[in-house]
């Protein structure tokens, strides 16, 4: 194992939550999530020699992870009815703290969004600026802001409907 491997593993370890968030947003099925995480890691490693360390690793990682996830989402068929593989996952979730109802709902609603809107919302929730989001997604900052405003409105409505249904 050389220094590049070690450095890559260290950085990946520090930003492992990106792998989890992206895979959860794009795959409902645990098997698909495991495969997607592997795809993202392989692609990250293959691109690692082109990583410019003057930029944030998380930004670089997010862009690759999102590109892989959308391509994966577009090409992989649903796995329902297929046998379950026993291969271990690169990322394991040990005794997670329960999410609040709102975060859980938000995750569910994000999962239902269109692939590019999912990316937009994930980046927004992670605290990236409109400029950074625009650069990562290939749109202008003002376009990103407009789209986010609409998305937030759409999600607000979904929350409202959910709580109205819950109360009735």
């Amino acid at each position: 194992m050389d220094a590049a491997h070690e450095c890559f593993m260290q950085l990946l370890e520090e930003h492992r939550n990106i792998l989890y968030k992206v895979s959860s947003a794009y795959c409902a099925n645990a098997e698909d999530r495991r495969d997607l995480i592997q795809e993202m890691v392989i692609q990250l490693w293959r691109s690692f020699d082109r990583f410019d360390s003057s930029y944030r690793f998380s930004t670089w990682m997010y862009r690759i992870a999102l590109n892989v996830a959308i391509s994966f989402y577009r090409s992989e068929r649903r796995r329902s009815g297929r046998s379950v593989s026993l291969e271990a996952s690169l990322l394991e979730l040990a005794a997670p703290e329960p999410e609040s109802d709102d975060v859980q709902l938000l995750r569910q609603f994000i999962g239902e969004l269109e692939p590019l809107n999912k990316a937009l919302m994930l980046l927004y929730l992670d605290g990236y600026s409109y400029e950074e989001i625009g650069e990562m997604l290939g749109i202008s900052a003002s376009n990103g802001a407009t789209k986010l405003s609409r998305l937030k409105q759409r999600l607000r409505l979904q929350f409202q409907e959910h709580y109205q249904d819950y109360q009735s």
Partner: protein
Amino acid sequence: MEFDMLKAQWQAYDQKLTESLRLNRRLLRDKLVAKVDSALQRHERGLWLELGFDVVLLLLLGSFISDTWGEWRFVLPALVWHIFIIISMVVTIRELVTLREIDYNGPVATLQKRVEQVRLLHAWVNKWTWTLLPVLWVPILIIGMRWLLGLDAYAVLGTPTLLANLAFGLVLIPVIVVASRTLAGRGEQWPWVQSIIDDVNGEHVVAAARFLREVRDFEEER
């Protein structure tokens, strides 16, 4: 529902999530050392195989055309397949070039649009390959009989029989299209069967065109 509050909750949970997540370093090390292929690399290998197969077919058909030059009843069916294979090769080469040029570190919408354009083209070729197969098998029969057995299909089977087969193939095309629409979503237990069904009923073309439109809309400022 205040979105800023929701965002704060999301980020707070994110902190806890990071603590609960464990990267399987041993497995990761094994994968990195073993240089495990990505799905993209496997797909690329499949395309190279397809291209190799097409090149061999193209050369064999070229040789057949040159051997039977002047005998148009053999040359024409071979030319039909020749053209068909050239179209397929062009699409495969274009896809290979795109795959080679893919930089996953590029802006998401730009990259996805590029990939989807090639996917749409591929879906079109697959749709028409499967759809025209009932008609295209007649030229194969003519070429195959001549090439492998040295027989003239027109003389052995008779031109009316060949024409009847061609007509039957034409009639079969709408039947196959209707059947593929009826069977849509019923072959999920056999993914490759479902994939062929979706090729024929145009599901892959529609999905690729829809996503391409989605990416273009996303890029547009409005």
